[in-house]
């Protein structure tokens, strides 16, 4: 396990987030150091994606303290934006544009040179289909492009919501050096595969109905208990 740095990359204390009257997250607290991976586990509706979106600055925390890469959310969200790589349920790619056009668009938003686009297209093995409209690509190909989009600006923090869903073993192998443990970046990883997710993680956070039930070293038996 990587050593926890003095200033954590993510520092969450008593986080609450509601949708209307319903609490999607309540009393969530954890710290994550540089280079560490936090596995987020829990059944559907537990609040995993909501937590990821709060950390990505896409949702405002309603109570509690959240610091991401030193920026206190939501007041200093602008400091964290552009330093986070986010792979969510949606690929954040326009269906009518080609994969390359999408990546060039995002590269311009992040002020990244176009050479980086071609480098990542090659890295995710999409050279042959990069100029096809995204709507014509398979789910796995879209997922690979989504990972490339998240990495364009070389972010120190990756927020990954089931990044391997829809990928065949060859594609998983291709993405592993980029978004897997070997990439060396700080990661928050949502996974429904308990064994694989636990093996990828230094720390595990278990949620059920928005409440934090587990936090510590990944224990597959305890994690499986969340789903019962």
């Amino acid at each position: 396990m990587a050593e926890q740095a003095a200033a954590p990359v993510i520092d969450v204390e008593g986080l609450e987030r509601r949708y209307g009257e319903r609490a999607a997250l309540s009393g969530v607290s954890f710290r994550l150091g540089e280079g560490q991976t936090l596995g987020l586990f829990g059944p559907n509706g537990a609040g995993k994606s909501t937590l990821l979106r709060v950390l990505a600055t896409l949702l405002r925390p309603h109570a509690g303290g959240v610091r991401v890469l030193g920026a206190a959310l939501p007041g200093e969200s602008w400091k964290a934006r552009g330093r986070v790589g986010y792979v969510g349920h949606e690929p954040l790619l326009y269906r009518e544009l080609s994969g390359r056009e999408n990546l060039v668009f995002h590269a311009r938003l992040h002020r990244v040179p176009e050479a980086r686009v071609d480098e990542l297209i090659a890295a995710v093995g999409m050279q042959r289909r990069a100029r096809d409209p995204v709507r014509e690509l398979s789910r796995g190909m879209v997922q690979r492009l989504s990972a490339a989009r998240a990495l364009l600006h070389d972010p120190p923090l990756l927020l990954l919501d089931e990044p391997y869903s829809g990928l065949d073993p060859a594609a998983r192998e291709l993405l592993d050096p980029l978004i897997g443990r070997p990439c060396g970046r700080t990661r928050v990883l949502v996974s429904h595969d308990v064994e694989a997710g636990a093996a990828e993680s230094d720390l595990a956070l278990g949620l059920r109905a928005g409440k934090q039930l587990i936090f510590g070293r990944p224990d597959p038996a305890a994690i499986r208990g969340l789903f019962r």
Partner: protein
Amino acid sequence: MIGTAWTILRKDLQIELRTKESVPAMALFSVTVFVLFHFGLQRNELEGDLAAGVLWVTLILATVLAVNRLFVTEREQGGIDGLLLAPIDRTAVFVAKAGALFLYLVLLELVAVPAFGILLLGPDLFKPLPTLILLLVLADVGLAAVGALVSALAVETRARDLIVPLLLLPLLVPVAIAGAEATEPLFSGNQAAHELGKWVALLGLYDMVFLLVSIAVFDFLLED
């Protein structure tokens, strides 16, 4: 900020060019409305206040179609999250969306105004055309600013198709009044310069107010 706005605008135009969702629908709608007025009013030719009213109301209703679609790609394809994750000035998103709507309106008018001249307008269209172009451009700036604002507001709601006209049309009443009042003399041949100046000033003031208001509040609209 301008560079970012241009990047987003170019992407929007690229998508519109491929999907052809907004401009063709607006143009077809306008021509259909002119045909309906032609038969509904049982008149071959219109002039004066009636001609001005028909033209401006048709253009404003066609604007509703584009406003309904302006942010849909961002919401349906998750593009808005991509924009929100980027380290950009969010005013650039407003400038791009308003810019796209402005261009759609100009393209619409390139079809709708000649069609209006052919199908309904009694007096010659060519003589008042320079003044009409000035009025249309001024109105388009206001329509684009208000339209982008309303579109961003409505896209989060479930009943977007209802919310857009309910919010947008009342806000566009000043454009309809100023546009129609300024155009009426052009279509009846008794144009008085000082009257025209008053309505041009009103359109200019409307543009300025809504551009400033939109820029001031747009950032908050993009927050969850």
